[in-house]
């Protein structure tokens, strides 16, 4: 890429994008239109994915029926990780450009990511009992996911620990960026350490190693979890923006009463 391209095309494009969506009123209009669609798409995808996963796809020759836990486990882990990546991007954008919606996005993502991390750990341990013979092992993947869960909890705790909400937002944004060192560790833990958790079989060099009859329901479920995540994220962001407005209105009311 030439420097001219970066200066004349890329920077204006980023700026345009940032400024276009920095406006909470525009976001409110856009998200109000998007939420029913997201809900519909999520229900369709999840319905199709669950039907294919639970009834159509075959049982595994080694794992028998427990393989079906994969259809809820892998998408949960996917959301747990991508939600944190999204938060890290949001925190960086919020800190660098003081973008208000990016901070709202980061803050609203945290509880969703924490729940999905918990679900990934829970479904994984329910699968681990019949397959590995134990609910929990101190495997590198499991440990790093547990650390991710604590990072989410720590973020939420730090966000709520200040009387001044602005300070909580910026401090926890720095924490998200610091914690993002954990993400590549989680992703590559199954390749760096030779432990119990199986290595990646969907997104890997050389194409997926799982059969199409199992890959399709898995991909559908991943898509369903992703649209569900965006749907819930929009609802949470809308709530957060409305709460901020309410607080501002109430403050103005108090000031007017004090003034009169």
């Amino acid at each position, binding site marked *: 890429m030439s420097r001219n391209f970066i200066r004349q095309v890329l920077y204006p494009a980023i700026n345009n994008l940032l400024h276009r969506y920095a406006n909470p009123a525009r976001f409110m209009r856009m998200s109000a239109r998007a939420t029913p669609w997201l809900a519909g798409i999520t229900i369709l995808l999840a319905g199709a994915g669950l039907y294919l996963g639970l009834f159509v796809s075959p049982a595994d020759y080694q794992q028998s029926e427990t393989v079906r836990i994969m259809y809820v486990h892998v998408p949960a882990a996917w959301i747990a990780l991508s939600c944190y990546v999204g938060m890290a991007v949001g925190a960086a954008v919020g800190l660098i450009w003081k973008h208000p919606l990016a901070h709202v996005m980061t803050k609203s993502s945290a509880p969703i990511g924490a729940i999905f991390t918990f679900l990934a750990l829970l479904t994984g341990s329910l699968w681990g009992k019949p397959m590995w013979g134990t609910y929990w092992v101190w495997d590198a993947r499991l440990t790093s996911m547990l*650390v991710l869960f604590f*990072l989410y909890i720590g973020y939420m705790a730090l966000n709520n620990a200040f009387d001044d909400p602005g300070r909580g937002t910026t401090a926890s944004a720095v924490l998200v960026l610091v914690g993002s060192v954990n993400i590549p560790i989680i992703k590559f833990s199954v390749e760096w350490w030779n432990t119990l958790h199986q290595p990646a079989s969907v997104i890997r060099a050389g194409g997926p190693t799982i059969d199409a009859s199992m890959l399709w329901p898995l991909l559908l479920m991943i898509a369903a979890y992703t649209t569900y995540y965006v749907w819930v994220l929009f609802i949470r962001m809308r709530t957060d923006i409305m709460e901020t407005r309410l607080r501002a209105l109430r403050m103005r009311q108090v000031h007017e009463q004090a003034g009169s």
Partner: protein
Amino acid sequence: MNSFTAIVRRDLHMAFRQGFDSLMVVMFFVLAVILFPFGVGPEGNILARIAAGVIWVAALLSTMLSLERLFQTDFEDGSLELLVLSPVPLEVVVVAKVVGHWLTTGLPLIIASPLLAVFLNMHGDGYPMMLAALALGTPTLSLIGAVGAALILGARRGGVLLSLLVLPLFIPVLIFGVSAVDAALGGFSVKAQLLILGALLLAAAPLCSWAAAAALRQAVESS
């Protein structure tokens, strides 16, 4: 460089004036380790097996306990504001504070650790490696902890919050610190573990001082 040594000297001065504070951290370290023989029973074999892990975990916890004070007093009496306004880059100030912190807590912990290894019946082969691993690992703990200490300035119940933020990030240091000692006890090569501990320190030094400086700036701006 002058201001760097000045900040370190100031922190050391203050630590020596209130000498009891850094002594208390070492006392906590010793007491926390001494609890284990009562908890798991005084059998020599079991204690020798868990010695490295117990000493490392106790060192982690004592470092964490001492972190809350790292920026808190400066924040409360306003000297932090002066440090932020001074021409010295704030990252350098953070490194100076971390050096001061390590000299007053990390170093005493390392000095006390052989005594605890005796209590826990550790085999003689592990001693040099434990000292080396602690010497490489505790500065990393101070650096990571500085980020947490800067983030919680002005928070309600900062101490409990600090443990929640910092302990998960301490885990890599713990893993490689303990496995270095275990490898030495088992007669294996410890080069890999020591290299990773060194790499963690080298990565943490710029990244943590940068993040802690960012957090300090925000704390001062919003107070």
